[in-house]
């Protein structure tokens, strides 16, 4: 498809010069991330929802919806420590498990978070992320085996952003709790989008270091590797695909024209909020993408909404676009609105690591 014509056509001296500029840009951002602490990413006034592991998972999920939060740390009152993070997608995965195994959904209402997280069957089939994590990070930023926080991966508020990004990347996390270890307090959970937002709002650079296109820089996923969904596919199918590929969202394309129709995110909970009870929610997993796309909220623009760009867009312009509309990912389309790639916030941050 799109080849690196522009780069290969350029003279070798020009190429080297471009390489220098790229590296300077990378270093500038890397040193920015090195200089900033996780504390600087925190909101002036933020909210953290924490769940006791004894509460029913269903109520916890509705609480997340009520707060419109993506993730909540879990607190084990017996061990007096945080033991993990519950996300909206975890609950969807549990529902998928119930649909797959045909278990009685009515029992779900009585099951506590601790009960679900201890269920090997659920953990091994639908919860890709291993909930008990073995490493904690101390304020110095070194990995160390710790008995106290053996199952909770968090980062100290005073650790550098660079360290937080590496942790997100190396452990393939979506959410990283920022912790005040002596107080046993979680101050916030940060995501790649948070880091990127802080970057575009606070990073100042006079030189033009980011004039290469994202395609040339190799940021994002392109071509054959891009996973797409079709409008006729059921939600269950799509969620399974996302799970297998470890993706957070998928572009939905028209089967015939290959044009972009929308994007479906794993954390989209519209189908759940429309459900009257757990049984209804499980049966909603059979809805097709087409129906779900029509149900998506249009009153607010979430970071998961569809945002597109072209392969010709420079990194600079992508940053500027992100500053305008916070997005979790951009769908890269060609002139015919056909999907050629996906650039996630994660890809954008990972480029500088």
């Amino acid at each position, binding site marked *: 498809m799109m080849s690196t014509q522009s780069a290969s056509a350029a003279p070798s001296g020009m190429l080297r010069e471009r390489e220098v500029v790229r590296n300077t840009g990378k270093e500038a951002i890397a040193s920015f991330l090195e200089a900033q602490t996780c*504390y600087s990413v*925190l*909101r*002036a*006034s*933020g*909210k*953290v*929802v*924490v*769940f*006791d592991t*004894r*509460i029913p998972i269903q*109520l*916890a999920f509705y*609480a997340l919806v009520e*707060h*419109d*939060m993506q993730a909540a740390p879990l*607190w084990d*009152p017996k061990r007096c420590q945080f033991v993990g993070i519950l996300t909206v997608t975890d609950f969807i995965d549990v529902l998928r498990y119930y649909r797959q195994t045909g278990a009685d959904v009515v029992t779900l209402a009585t099951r506590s978070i601790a009960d679900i997280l201890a269920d090997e069957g659920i953990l091994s089939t639908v919860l890709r992320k291993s909930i008990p994590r073995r490493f904690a990070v101390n304020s110095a930023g070194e990995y160390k085996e710790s008995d106290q926080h053996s199952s909770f991966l968090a980062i100290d*508020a005073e650790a550098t952003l660079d360290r937080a990004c590496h942790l997100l990347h190396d452990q393939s996390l979506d959410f990283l709790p920022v912790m*005040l270890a002596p107080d046993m*307090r*979680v*101050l*916030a959970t940060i995501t790649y989008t948070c880091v990127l937002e802080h970057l575009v709002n606070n990073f100042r650079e006079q030189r033009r270091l980011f004039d290469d296109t994202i395609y040339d820089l190799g940021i994002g996923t392109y071509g054959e590797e891009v996973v797409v969904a079709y409008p006729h596919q059921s939600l269950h199918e799509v969620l399974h695909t996302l799970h297998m590929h470890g993706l957070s969202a998928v572009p939905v394309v028209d089967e015939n024209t290959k044009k972009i129709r929308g994007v479906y995110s794993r954390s989209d909970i519209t189908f759940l909020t429309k459900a009257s009870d757990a049984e209804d929610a499980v049966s909603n997993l059979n809805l097709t993408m087409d129906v779900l796309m029509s149900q998506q909220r249009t009153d*607010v*623009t979430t970071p998961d909404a569809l945002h597109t760009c072209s392969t010709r867009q420079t990194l600079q312009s992508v940053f500027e676009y992100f500053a305008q509309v*916070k997005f979790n990912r951009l769908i890269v389309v060609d002139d015919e609105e056909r999907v050629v790639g996906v650039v996630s916030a994660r890809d954008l941050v990972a480029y500088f690591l």
Partner: protein
Amino acid sequence: MGNQPASGAGGSMSSRRSSSGYHSHQQHGAGSGAGQSSYGGSKPPPGGAAPVGYMQTHSQQYPGAAMKKSSSDMSMTDLSSHYGADANEPAISQLDLATISAAEEDTVPTVFRWEHGGRNVYITGTFNGWSLALAPDQPTVADIEGRINNFIDVTDFKAYTGDKEFEKERAAADYHRCTKSDKSSNGEEETASSSGKKSSKGSDAEGEVYGHSMPDLDEYTKEPPPLPPHLRHIILNKPPQLQDTAALPVPQHVALNHLYCTAIKDNMMVLGITQRYKTKSCTTVYYSPC
């Protein structure tokens, strides 16, 4: 004073002292009325048990003392009443000696060493009711390093064995003190009444703390104090921002570290607290079962 039968008086006094657990040095140093009157008048009785000892002496042997004589010598009142009541003197000394030996068995030599200068050093504790016990008129001895040490006998010091025992003993002591002050109200014995006043005051003070009187109904049914108006602005109740749902309005500093809770619903309690870290604040919402 000198008129008292020297051997009998000195013996019984010192032994009584010892058994009632006061300072052992008075076994040797006393016999002089001046020392005793200064003890009885200016210094409070050393601890709960000592007044009981006095009182027992009086209440049991009061009739005898009244019959025999009303002592004009204040300082020797205790002694004379004691002495006069018991006709059989050798029996007393035997008894008292037994008490002494028993008391000495219980005695644990304890060295208090003060090495930080100063002019007056006091020792206080449960053995003297936490009143200032002036150490200087205790016998002193210089140790091998030339430091002056005082000796204090706390024979009647009762180790704290738990609230029940302790309360029982104290109640008994209070009861005796009260009866003593009642009996001495006729003014027969000056020493008794003066010490009785003191102890009855003490029991009054204690009575205020541990009373049996029911509090007024209004005391516990009245409305709680009104919520300060600035605490009505709960940032968790403010409409959320659509763009960033985890963001809250910046709280007023007075709202920090206050616990908020919702009514229990679905057997679940929701608590909220806003805390500050450096210049930023973080509100934690905790969902727990109840």
